[in-house]
């Protein structure tokens, strides 16, 4: 069939490349210069409007860390960042494979986007509440959550803190400042603003950090979040993870004629930063800046993390259906782990051997944790979740009608 062109005046944006095309991203300028100044964290919002259009970067491809935004992390911090990114990636790989083997219903990787989670988490206080999407497992890993519990959640088994109620990856870890992830896109953005307002109301200096994919910025909740954050100067960070894809839709569907997602914040008078999301140091720096601004009473910052979703949207997706298979490889901003590694090698803190060792060690550690987790049940056998738990936590205490239904279900079991 020959493809029918658009013959009307209705403009429909299309991505530059589709399967069969040779992707060439040379039109995306990778700024070699790191000229975006670092303003005072209490500057006026509009003083950062250029930061919404540029790209804050610290790590050059050769491994150098340069410019005002360089957070100058300690050796310990760098090692932790690298390890956590590698653990995240190893966990994703393992879980993906196990899903393919039928152990769980579904899984979502964050491959290529680890710097966003890890850099962000490291620059926040561990009691700052994050309102994540399903692609920030790295935050939990960075904050030391139990990987086994995370896996048990995905396996919906006896070790799942959520008792199997939620689909995989929709974690909830209040103790790690990690808000329960909603399957409904966008909804948490405005909730996080409300959370931050509560912090301000109580004169606490904790902040909230809310996160959305670029595609989900089209929901009304994104607008609510920007608007309410602006009106009440809520101490929060509004993060847009622009990984170029929303399932099969390229970022231009959400973006339209806009110049960046960070720039969406300009009209609300918020501070706006656009950052190389594959550069963990830049993510750290931007987050630290925004967190300080929020904590000092300067209100919210919109940060666009410019990155790339290297894998399918989820285990249910096959990206080769809608984008060139090699597009991830030619993406001009490289891989976040490789880029930090290069930096640490340049600093003399790291080498290829240690890297390979650590990679193997992460894989092994993940494999063992997974083994323990799976021992508690999985979808391919028995999840070991008591069916009656489904009636719990609908309300604080079950009202009469729910008690009746528990009885009906009991009767059905006999």
């Amino acid at each position, binding site marked *: 069939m020959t493809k029918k062109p658009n013959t009307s005046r209705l403009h429909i944006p299309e991505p530059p490349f589709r399967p069969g095309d040779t992707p060439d991203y040379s039109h995306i300028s990778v700024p070699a210069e790191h000229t975006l100044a670092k303003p005072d964290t209490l500057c006026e919002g509009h003083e950062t409007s250029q930061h919404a259009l540029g790209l804050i970067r610290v790590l050059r491809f050769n491994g150098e860390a340069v410019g005002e935004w360089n957070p100058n992390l300690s050796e310990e911090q760098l090692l932790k960042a690298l390890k956590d990114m590698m653990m995240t990636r190893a966990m994703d790989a393992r879980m993906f494979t196990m899903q393919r083997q039928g152990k769980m219903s579904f899984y979502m990787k964050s491959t290529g986007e680890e710097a966003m989670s890890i850099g962000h988490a490291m620059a926040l206080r561990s009691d700052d*509440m994050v309102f994540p999407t399903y692609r920030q497992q790295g935050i939990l890993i960075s904050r030391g959550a139990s990987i086994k519990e995370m896996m048990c959640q995905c396996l919906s088994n006896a070790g799942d*803190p*959520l*008792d199997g*109620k*939620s689909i995989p990856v*929709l974690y*909830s*870890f*209040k103790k790690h400042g990690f*808000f*329960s992830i*909603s*399957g*409904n896109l966008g*909804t*948490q*953005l*405005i*909730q*996080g*603003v*409300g*959370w*931050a*307002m*509560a*912090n301000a*109301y109580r004169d606490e200096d904790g902040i*909230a950090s809310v996160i959305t994919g670029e595609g989900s910025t089209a929901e*009304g*909740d994104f607008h*609510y*979040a920007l*608007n*309410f954050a602006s*009106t009440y100067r809520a101490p929060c960070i509004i993060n847009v993870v622009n990984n170029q894809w929303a399932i099969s839709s390229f970022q231009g569907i959400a973006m339209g004629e806009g110049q960046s997602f960070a720039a969406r914040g300009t009209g609300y008078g918020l501070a706006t930063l656009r950052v190389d999301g594959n550069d963990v140091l830049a993510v750290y720096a931007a987050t630290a800046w925004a967190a300080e601004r929020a904590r000092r009473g300067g209100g919210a910052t919109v940060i666009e993390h410019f990155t790339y979703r290297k894998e399918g949207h989820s285990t249910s997706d096959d990206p080769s259906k809608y984008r060139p298979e090699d597009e991830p490889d030619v993406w001009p901003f490289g891989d976040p782990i490789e880029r930090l590694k290069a930096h640490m090698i340049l600093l003399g803190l790291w080498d290829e051997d240690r890297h390979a060792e650590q990679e193997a060690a992460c894989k092994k550690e993940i494999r063992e944790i997974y083994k323990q987790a799976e021992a508690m049940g999985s979808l391919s056998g028995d999840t070991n979740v008591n069916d009656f738990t489904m009636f*719990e*936590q*609908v*309300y*604080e205490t079950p*009202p*009469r*009608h729910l008690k009746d239904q528990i009885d009906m279900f009991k009767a059905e079991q006999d």
Partner: protein
Amino acid sequence: MPQMNMIEAIRDALDVKMGQDKDVLVFGEDVGYFGGVFRCTAGLQEKHGLHRCFDTPISEGGIVGIAVGMAANGLRPVAEIQFADYIYPGYDQIASEAARLRYRSNGDFTAPLTIRTPVGGGIYGGTTHSQSPESLFTHIAGLKTVIPSNPYDAKGLLIQAIEDNDPVLFLEPKRLYNGPFDGDPHKPAVSWAKHELGDVPAGHYTVPFESARKVASGDDLTILCYGTMVWVAETSAKMMGVDADILDLRSLLPLDIDAIAESVKRTGRCLILHEATRTSGFGAELAAQVAEACFYSLEVPIFRVTGWDTPYPHAQEWAYFPGQRRVCGGIRTIMESQ
């Protein structure tokens, strides 16, 4: 005992809780300095501070959204939606988020918030200031929906709602704000001052959910109603000279099915009233539950008297409203059936 109309009773409930608990915040469109288009929050900003009772942008989704976040973070937000007709932009935040946060996080996070909103017709509000959308909320597991019919209950239920650890939708029949309304728009308005249910105790008290109020005791038939229709029911039953057992449900979810079943089993006849659109209105659920619980006692079919399956019209308001004629017709049908 202080005399209050329903607006004052609601305001007093908010005032009492704001005084007792600094985690109680009140917000919504025009609720701050101005005190709300129905004046339910008048004076609260002045008394409790700008940051405890404030205006929001016109964004029902945003209003519920911040309430969820605040509630999860330990506050007790009380959000006002200016008219229930405008609650739909917040529907997702209510149904998907507030109602389900406890469940999906298995109790890790909760959303103990209250949403107040005026419902019902009778003020020539037309399609967009008259709706009674309660049934759309009773379908939502994790949410509670209550609706007072008088000042005493309004205050007690609202305090209960604020103290409840689950999200509560608190519906305010706007036609009852200033006085009971028996369904006859041509009669001069009656005020709560002359009514014993306008005697509202000062200070703290609660009216529990899941407890219907017996409005009248009788053995001829049972009338299930709530909100404005309670008053129409009472008057219509008197007009028809029947000994009706009238239950004001007060809480729709959870529901006091015991009181309902006790009554219908005794009377064998059941009239269900509501102002909302008929199809899939809350009357459907009531009819189903009554039939389930009382099938063998029912002597005649349950009869639903409701608003029509049309939007709420403006000029034809009283033709839409299930007033005395329609209710009396329902009573007649029930009493004449055998």
